[in-house]
């Protein structure tokens, strides 16, 4: 580890944050944080959710004023009052949620607020704006249609538009907040290619992430933050996943879990020849059969959008079935209501916690009640026992380490990772026979991911059945006992997750059969 305070290369540094402290009521978000970023390099800011990464970058971008410390850009101490000042000093920020106007075109978005004008400002010079955007994207090798509407292009392109927007405003230092969170693996690689192109032309990039691999792949240097403090700065070459994980979390993390062999019991979930149409009437799930037994984790891997979402929703009772049958412990649940399925012992962790897992404006007491609001011990004769509900929410918060530990807080006020922990906690607390978990660790930091994985393993050893869908390969591979690969609505194969390699899985996910036979045959043993 290099002691960042004594490297003494301030003269060539594009950015030097010196002893930054930022306090919010009741919290010290940044506590004497140092960060030095060399010009023309890619610097990863690594840390768990709530470690103070975004706060630190908001200080650099002028959104927050630091209580203590100095911001030095290009060797000049700066005092930013607003993002405008930061932009003028050549610092641009690409937020996690894109700041784009959907019905406007790429060009209109890039030039917004800085429109080239003619006729004494009576008109926007649209030709010049378009030319400038085309020039800019060519210079950095971006493939962007200047006339496309934002709402018609994918997230990868939208992100490039955001980067162009910053460059258009003359940014030399680009800050990206969790830039890979919304991208497919392919788009992530393209983004890292963009990083190389930009640094080759002398731009400096700081990106925030909590993904170890990304930091190691894309960055030259990695600074790790933990609980608002700088833990250290490493060259990417000197870093290992284990070392970084330990720095981030402050204790040793078991990235690979050993666990006892499966001892499956009776079949809990049995799905036969299931066919499901998506919202547009296109067949999304095509003749899928599977079964999950007690004490077994059945994993489904696949690239997002291959029918996993529809399959899971059909099983959970949120989507109508167009053919086939679903049975839950021998009971025909094909057309059963959501409530009947819950009562029959099905817990469900939805893919999108904010859309279908929580009511964002409710507090945690009410959110903890969701799905059980009709049942004892929370409800009797149509009246809700709020004391029991509060106690229940407090238990979830304590057991799953949800922060802040305040059940009166609105769900919206929690960070994404804490929202997810609460949803997982609520569902696992149902004493379920079957857990249907869709992307249970999406957007969750390393420490919490490990925790959720442990809980899933507990469920398994406790004799519950678990259906796990995830786009994270290492996750489905390490947790599942049998692993199905879904492609365009059908299972390509069902494999033994311990025997299959990531290359073979990758081929299967693309709908191809690898040369070596990895199949464990029959889908529903």
């Amino acid at each position, binding site marked *: 580890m290099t002691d960042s305070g004594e490297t003494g290369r301030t003269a060539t540094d594009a950015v030097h944050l010196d002893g930054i402290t930022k306090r919010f009521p009741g919290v010290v978000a940044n506590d004497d944080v140092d960060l030095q970023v060399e010009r023309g390099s890619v610097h990863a800011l690594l840390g768990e959710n709530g470690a103070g990464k975004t706060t630190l970058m908001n200080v650099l971008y002028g959104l927050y004023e630091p209580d203590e410390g100095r911001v030095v850009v290009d060797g000049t101490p700066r005092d930013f009052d607003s993002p405008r000042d930061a932009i003028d000093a050549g610092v641009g920020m690409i937020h996690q949620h894109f700041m784009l106007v959907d019905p406007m075109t790429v060009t209109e978005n890039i030039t917004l607020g800085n429109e080239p004008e003619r006729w004494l400002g009576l008109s926007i010079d649209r030709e010049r704006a378009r030319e400038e955007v085309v020039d800019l994207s060519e210079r950095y090798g971006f493939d962007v249609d200047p006339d496309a509407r934002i709402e018609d292009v*994918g997230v990868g392109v939208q992100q490039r538009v955001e980067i162009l927007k910053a460059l258009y405003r003359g940014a030399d230092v680009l800050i990206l907040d969790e830039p890979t969170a919304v991208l497919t693996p*392919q788009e992530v690689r393209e983004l890292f290619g963009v990083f190389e192109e930009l640094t080759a032309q002398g731009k400096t990039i700081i990106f925030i992430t909590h993904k170890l691999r990304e930091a190691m792949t894309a960055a030259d240097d990695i600074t790790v933050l933990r609980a608002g403090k700088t833990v250290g700065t490493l060259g990417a070459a000197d870093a290992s996943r284990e070392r970084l994980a330990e720095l981030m979390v402050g204790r040793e993390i078991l990235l690979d879990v050993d666990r006892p062999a499966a001892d499956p019991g009776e079949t809990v979930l049995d799905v036969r020849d299931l066919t499901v149409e998506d919202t547009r009437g296109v067949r999304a799930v095509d003749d899928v059969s599977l079964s999950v037994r007690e004490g077994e984790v059945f994993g489904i891997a696949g690239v997002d959008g291959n029918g996993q979402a529809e399959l899971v929703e059909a099983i959970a009772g949120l989507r109508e079935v167009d053919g086939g049958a679903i049975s839950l412990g021998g009971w025909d649940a094909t057309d059963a209501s959501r409530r009947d399925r819950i009562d029959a012992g099905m817990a469900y962790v939805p893919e999108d916690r904010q859309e279908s897992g929580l009511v964002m404006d409710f507090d945690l007491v009410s959110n903890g009640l969701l799905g059980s609001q009709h049942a004892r011990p929370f409800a009797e004769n149509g009246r809700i026992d709020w004391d029991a509900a509060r106690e229940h929410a407090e238990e979830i918060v304590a057991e799953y380490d949800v922060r802040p530990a305040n059940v009166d807080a609105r769900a919206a006020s929690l960070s994404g990772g804490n929202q997810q922990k609460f949803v997982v906690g609520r569902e696992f607390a149902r004493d379920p026979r079957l857990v249907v978990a869709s992307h249970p660790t999406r957007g969750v930091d390393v420490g919490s991911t490990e925790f959720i994985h442990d809980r899933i393993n507990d469920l398994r050893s406790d004799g519950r059945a678990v259906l796990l869908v995830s786009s994270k390969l290492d996750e489905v591979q390490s947790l599942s006992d049998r692993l199905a690969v879904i492609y365009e609505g059908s299972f390509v194969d069902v494999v033994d997750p311990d025997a299959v390699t990531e*290359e073979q*899985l990758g081929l299967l996910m693309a709908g191809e059969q690898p040369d070596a036979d990895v199949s464990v045959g029959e889908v529903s043993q």
Partner: protein
Amino acid sequence: MTDDADSGEAAADGGETADRERTGDGLGAGLRRLSGRLLVALATAALLALLGVAAVVAPESSVGRLFGIVVSTSTLSATLRLSVPIVFAAIGGIFAEKSGVINIGLEGLLIISAFSAVYGADVTGSMLAGLLIGVLASTVLAAVFAVVCIEYRADQIIAGLAVWLIALGLAPFASQVVYGSPNTDSVGTLGTWTIPVLADIPLLGALFDAAPPVYLMFVTVAGAWYVLNRTAFGRWVRAAGENPRALDTAGVDVSRVRYAAVLISGVLSGIGGAALAFNIGQFTGNGPTMVNGKGFIAIVAYLFGNYNPVGALGSTMLFAGLDAVQLRLQTRQILGVPDSLVQTIPFVAVIVVLALVGRTRIPEAAGEHYESGEE
């Protein structure tokens, strides 16, 4: 990452499919939006054609006489006259709502300016001064609305209704105090500006033989379209209503843009209200006052026109045209339908049109407060 190469390919496929689908959705939604409006336009044209054919076949039948009423210079001229206040209010409403502030108080702005313009003209003896005073009154009321909504984060719908109710009470009350009656004295009407030669064209001549506000209306429609679509300010207005944070991070003050847009709605509604009052030369304040729902019809007009000033003009002409026909039908007794039923024609049309149009694309952030620096 060892799986990059393999899964990457599949991911790329997935991504492209998603993109295509998104584009498809956009197109589909666009077609659906278009079809509702197209349907109304086609139905109107078909109805007129049907009437026309019937009129040629049997000029003396009631259908034939109906056609004579619908397609006539005087009906067109009445349509234009009736359109003026609605179009001005609608364009004002477009600016406000495009910027993210739903101004449901257009009706109130029309009322306050109709009275103020008459009072101003009465006191100063000048119609022009009256117009300016009407515009001033409406703009001041709009400014109050803007401060309450933007600075104090009041609910825009409630604040807008308050603007209407304040004007609905204040204008007749002021008239009562000054003139001893909810109706003011007459200050005379505006004459017409007749453009030689063009005014003699059959039917369309009505376009060139109209009161000054009618000409101003056309200029305003064109100007508003230009400002919204071709100037930086217009782009900021749209951005403020769609994604204010994007505008804010681009270094433009969202509140200032919204204030400007709401004030514009005040100025334009002021012109509309004054034109309405000068059309008959006095302010009448009984019941719903002389404005009588025109501010609300303006909202329907710009929604039907999909926030496009030209579209708002077109839909207003449809409603105002029906109103003009209805006024003339009352005096003719052609179909033997009671007057009170005939009077409902424009309002029935509004409901039918709204049902047909289906979804209008409302600005994403319309009705939402925006505070800079809020995380």
